[in-house]
């Protein structure tokens, strides 16, 4: 489960930056980039808190 969540989180991060790279490369419109980036944002915040436990790290 943890691995699955991690994969989703990294997918979220990829969706956050990749659309901007595609806009820069002329392969995507700015409006579409807004939607995809938002999807990445939602995915990151919906999954990262379950495995990226800042509190646990602080104790290490």
């Amino acid at each position, binding site marked *: 489960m943890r691995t699955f969540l991690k994969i989703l989180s990294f997918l979220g991060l990829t969706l956050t*930056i990749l659309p901007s790279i595609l806009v820069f490369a002329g392969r995507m419109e700015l409006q579409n980039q807004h939607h995809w980036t938002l999807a990445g944002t939602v995915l990151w915040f919906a999954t990262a808190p379950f495995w990226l436990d800042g509190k646990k790290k602080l104790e290490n």
Partner: protein
Amino acid sequence: MKFEKFKSNLDSIAEYESAPVPPSRLKGWKSFLGMYAGEHTAGTEFVIGPLFVVHGVTAFDLVTGLLLGNLMAVLSWAFLCAPIATGTRLTLYKKLEKICGRNLARIYNLVNGVMFCFLAGSMIAVSATAVGIPFGIEMPGLGDWMPTSIGWILAVFGVGLVITVVAVLGYDQIARFSNIAAPWMILVFLGAGLAVLPELGVKSFGDFWQVANEKIWVGATAGDVSKFTFWHVMFFAWFANMAMHIGMSDMSILRYAKKWQHGFASAAGVYLGHFFAWMAAGILYAVVLIQIVPQGMTLAGYLPTIGSDQMPSVAPGPLATYAIGISGAICVIVAGWTTANPTIYRAGLAIQAMMPRVKRWKVTLAVGLFTTVAACFPALVMKLLDFVALYGLILMPMGAVIFMDYHLFGKLGLAADYAEKQQSNFNPAAALTWFITLVAAVLLNIFMGVEIFFLGLPGWFLAAMLYVAFSKALQKRETMQTGSATV
């Protein structure tokens, strides 16, 4: 009943304000990496980046100034602040109490706390520029110092209250949120800058340098705006967090580090936040700025013909939303939040040290509310560069005092932690050092025209020399008095 239980939970949050951090609570480098990356990729970066454009920095001066200035900042954290933090495991405020005595430490804490409040206020204001977007709230302009509307005040209060509640819950909660938000936030900053580059004419990375010189950092300013050089950029980057490294405020954070080398984790913060994020924010502003240039004119040719009131607002919310959509607005809110949180936490610690009997959470709550009121005034944002330089300068002399006391006093045959040893409430050597250094800085500024960004370096050496000289005189006098009393 529920409130009593909640209050009891808050009272039990141990932050070791008055005692060294125990070994069981020490933290590894990863938590500092997350903390620094989150804290220095802040909402205020969205303002500082555009302000470099406003002040007419050239592309070469910006890149070289940021590289060198940020390196100096990392070295300051690693070699000045971290060794003392890990050597003592104390907060700055507790260490100051030992050196300066309770009364002088109280004065310092008050000044420190107020400065932190204003800084956190600017971060709350930045977040509010994003919160206000869906409600169509008019953003303050470059020349606005006072609140511009009721909507603006409501947006500021909404953000301020949330940030205050999280800060009240303590350091671990803040670090946890920063760790989670940091990687995403950095990518949004970079993505925003990258996505608007084609609008400036950058089609490949090879075009960037030419466009950067002709359309972003063009080396020209509006008629009534001062021009920045390499030296401004370098010293600003070095001293942007002067209060925290040279001024030793980050002792409060780095005292949790297992090793002093964890101070190098600050590189994650400054190179992501104070290099890439400042540049990305500058690019965002340039996209808006270039739109006011009449056809047939260049930005460098047009800017000197207008006043600053004719330049677009540097409000980060709309800028980020234009580039990357709702994610940009969320990023501005979160970026302001992750920076304002530790800043309010530090302010809470500073003020709490003045009244140790009052629980930290109560003090933090009061500090958060004061900060929120301050955030209503856009002057904090529009004059951010000057304010950041000023707050570092005011707190810096005490950092020099701690450095000399910790590293050199033993070698010089002087007593360290003088106030504690003498059971004194006021160390006049430290007080005179602080006061005279600041007076000298003001005189240099007024009579020799030295800008505020350049006063920190000579100020530190002056403070270090003054503290040794005054301590020698003071401790010699005390020794003579003790000796004659014994005879």
